[in-house]
């Protein structure tokens, strides 16, 4: 057990999986010699060589598409999109081919690849470096869409993603990359894809969040607790396939739900999460479902990015508002 940042935890997952399995390769822009712009792939080239840790040409579509070819031909590529805002070049390959190859070939071929990408606002980056477009990927059948919230689950989820037989888009909240540390076990640990989990128990209101927003949701929960309000906080972890059991069950106990994400509000994941609650727990609801999200504007340049992002205050107010309904 060692305390580590999410960067270190992701690096540990890659090291261990490359050590375990020769078919695991890492490829992307600047991932080998420099160890990636965020150093997630640091040291991998030294440990496993340039044949397995590959600095590719600057070409996101080719990075995704060659990964598809590699995966069909027996490898498990873990490719990196340097920022999710540049992954749209690769969207065509991920939607048209990675997600469809198993289906199109009727199971003859499958694409066990992972496309890692830093996403989200909060690190004072340039335009196109702060978006949160998980809904795009989550709406594609055949793809899995994973967003870890902290170092320990990030490690466990990445190991599971690498071992998964289907293509996984793995969003890494860059605001959480170095923001805090957690104990991460040295021994192998996995977190199953397609599961969400309760991270804080409570009986008054259910707050559903993921990625960098989970910490803010937990801060809001602590603040509510000072007034004797116990929020149950759920970490979604996998956006698709979405595991709705923990939060729909929780809402049956609390009767109130607040959904938090930094993606824009309209057509964002909160819509799907809320509808699952309506389908499964409608008769237990005591108040309208609330959502605290990014606004339906472009993510502002970084001087104003915190104005765009949900914060603990907004989450807390939404929870109190849900509780004030009778």
């Amino acid at each position, binding site marked *: 057990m060692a305390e580590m940042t999410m960067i270190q935890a992701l690096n540990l997952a890659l090291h261990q999986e490359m050590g375990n399995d020769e078919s695991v390769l890492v490829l992307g822009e600047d991932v080998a010699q420099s160890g990636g712009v965020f150093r997630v792939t640091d040291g991998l080239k030294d440990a496993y060589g340039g044949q397995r840790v590959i600095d590719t040409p600057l070409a996101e579509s080719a990075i995704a*598409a060659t990964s598809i*070819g590699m995966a069909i031909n027996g490898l498990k590529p873990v490719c990196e999109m340097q920022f999710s805002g540049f992954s749209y070049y690769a969207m065509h390959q991920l939607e048209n081919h990675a997600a469809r190859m198993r*289906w199109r070939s009727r199971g003859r071929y499958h694409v066990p690849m992972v496309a890692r990408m830093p996403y989200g606002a909060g690190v004072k980056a340039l335009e196109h470096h702060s978006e949160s477009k998980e809904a795009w990927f989550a709406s594609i059948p055949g793809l899995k869409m994973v967003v870890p919230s902290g170092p320990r689950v990030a490690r466990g989820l990445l190991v599971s993603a690498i071992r998964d037989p289907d293509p996984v888009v793995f969003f890494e909240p860059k605001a959480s990359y170095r923001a805090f540390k957690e104990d991460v076990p040295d021994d192998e640990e996995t977190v199953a894809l397609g599961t969400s989990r309760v991270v804080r128990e409570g009986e008054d209101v259910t707050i559903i969040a993921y990625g960098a927003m989970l910490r803010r949701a937990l801060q809001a929960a602590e603040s509510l607790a000072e007034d004797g309000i116990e929020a149950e906080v759920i970490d979604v972890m996998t956006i698709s396939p979405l595991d709705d059991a923990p939060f729909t069950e929780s809402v049956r106990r609390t009767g109130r739900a607040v959904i938090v994400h930094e993606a824009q509000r309209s057509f964002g994941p909160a819509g799907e999460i809320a509808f699952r609650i309506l389908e499964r727990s409608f008769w237990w609801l005591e108040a309208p479902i609330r959502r605290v999200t990014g606004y339906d504007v472009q993510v502002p340049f970084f001087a104003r990015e915190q104005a765009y992002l949900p914060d603990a205050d907004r989450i807390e107010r939404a929870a109190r508002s849900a509780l004030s309904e009778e």
Partner: protein
Amino acid sequence: MHRPTVPGWPRITSRPAGRGHRMAAPAMGRMWPNRTTTSVGLVVVRTGDIGPQRARSDPGPRGHPGSGPVSGDAEDASAQSRTDETNDGGCMPRDEMTIDVALERLVVLDEQDEVDQELLPDLDDEFLRRLYRTMLLSRRFDERRLKLQRQGRIGTFAPAIGQEAAQLGAISAIDDDDWFVPSYRDTTAAIWRGTPLWGLLLYDAGHNEGAEPPEGQKDLPIAVPVGSQIPHATGLGFAARYRDTGEVVLTMFGDGATSEGDFHEAVNFASVHETPVVFFCQNNQYAISTPVELQTGSHTIVQKAVAYGVPGIQVDGNDVLGVHVAAREAVERARAGQGPTLIEAVTYRQSVHTTADDPSTYRDEEEEQEWMERDPIDRLARFLRDREILDDDRRQQLEDEVGEEVQAAWQEGEQRMQELTDPLEIFEHVYAERPAYLEEQREAFRRDHEAAQQNSTGKGDDG
């Protein structure tokens, strides 16, 4: 409107290849000499010394630092410019850098039925007859499919008519254990690989089952978005090299696909990593209605190879023997670890783009007629007759055989289609394991479907 049949090379002079082989004097109307190497003296004028050739910190995937098509002349140029440094940096020198590249053009059996004996590949009679039979079968199959489409029995498809030699010359150069990454027009190649005609018909009739490659056949299903399959070949090749499987990957695409970013990304990536891939472009002159002149400012497709630092060869795509020679060399190079090749097969889409297309709106009959006269199947037939490999009787016999085969394929396809009625099939093969929500949707669909069937049979009225 009359367009040159083959993109010209107006700015490039050619000379015979230095193989002791001399081409015959070009006959009237001949498209090109049999095999020529074109030396492209690219002159790059630059100002100033752009710095020393940067040494790579490690040998890199190509294994030789500073590799690439830039010849030693670049160093000379550098050296020369350094002599100008006495100018105290105030005057930027301007000098020339020569990039030494060679591109080839090749034809073995030309449209005048002349054969280049030296280049003629050593193929036994049985193999040659099989080439002919496959081309004929592909042609008759396409003709039948055009009728089936008009009758509404199958949907939209893209005929290979006119391109049979291009596809076959290339596909016959790879082994069964190699990979084939096709576009949507590569029917002749698919037939050669062993895809049953009824399987192709299932696809045409809108059944997913038709996309599944036959067991043991290392073909990807056809890719519909133009050019998007090309980088898959690069990845397959990368894995083949990494795993040391000895496999070569052949991918096919058209002239239009070379305008897509994926073509560029795929060939560039393959060149850098020397993956064993043959990039095979069928320049059939049109992308739907857009002629190749509006597709690219390059005089040829093959010259793009220069920019990527890979060998390139242009072949007469209606000469199955020439294409085979070019493809076999490319395959051998790939198998020997020498990386990818770009082949441009110059051919013509004699028929429609797809059954939704009307070529009369963008090209004239005269042009079509010219290309009909270069028909690849007729050309091989004359060659086989002249060599007494296939006489007229045997040829007629083959016609009858393939006619029956096409007919039998439709019957088989129709029968299978009648068995493929289970709509629950739409929920298969989305993920390795079906997620809970999808299982729920499938169950809901099943209930709705059963209820609807009961209603339609009147059983639902009893309650």
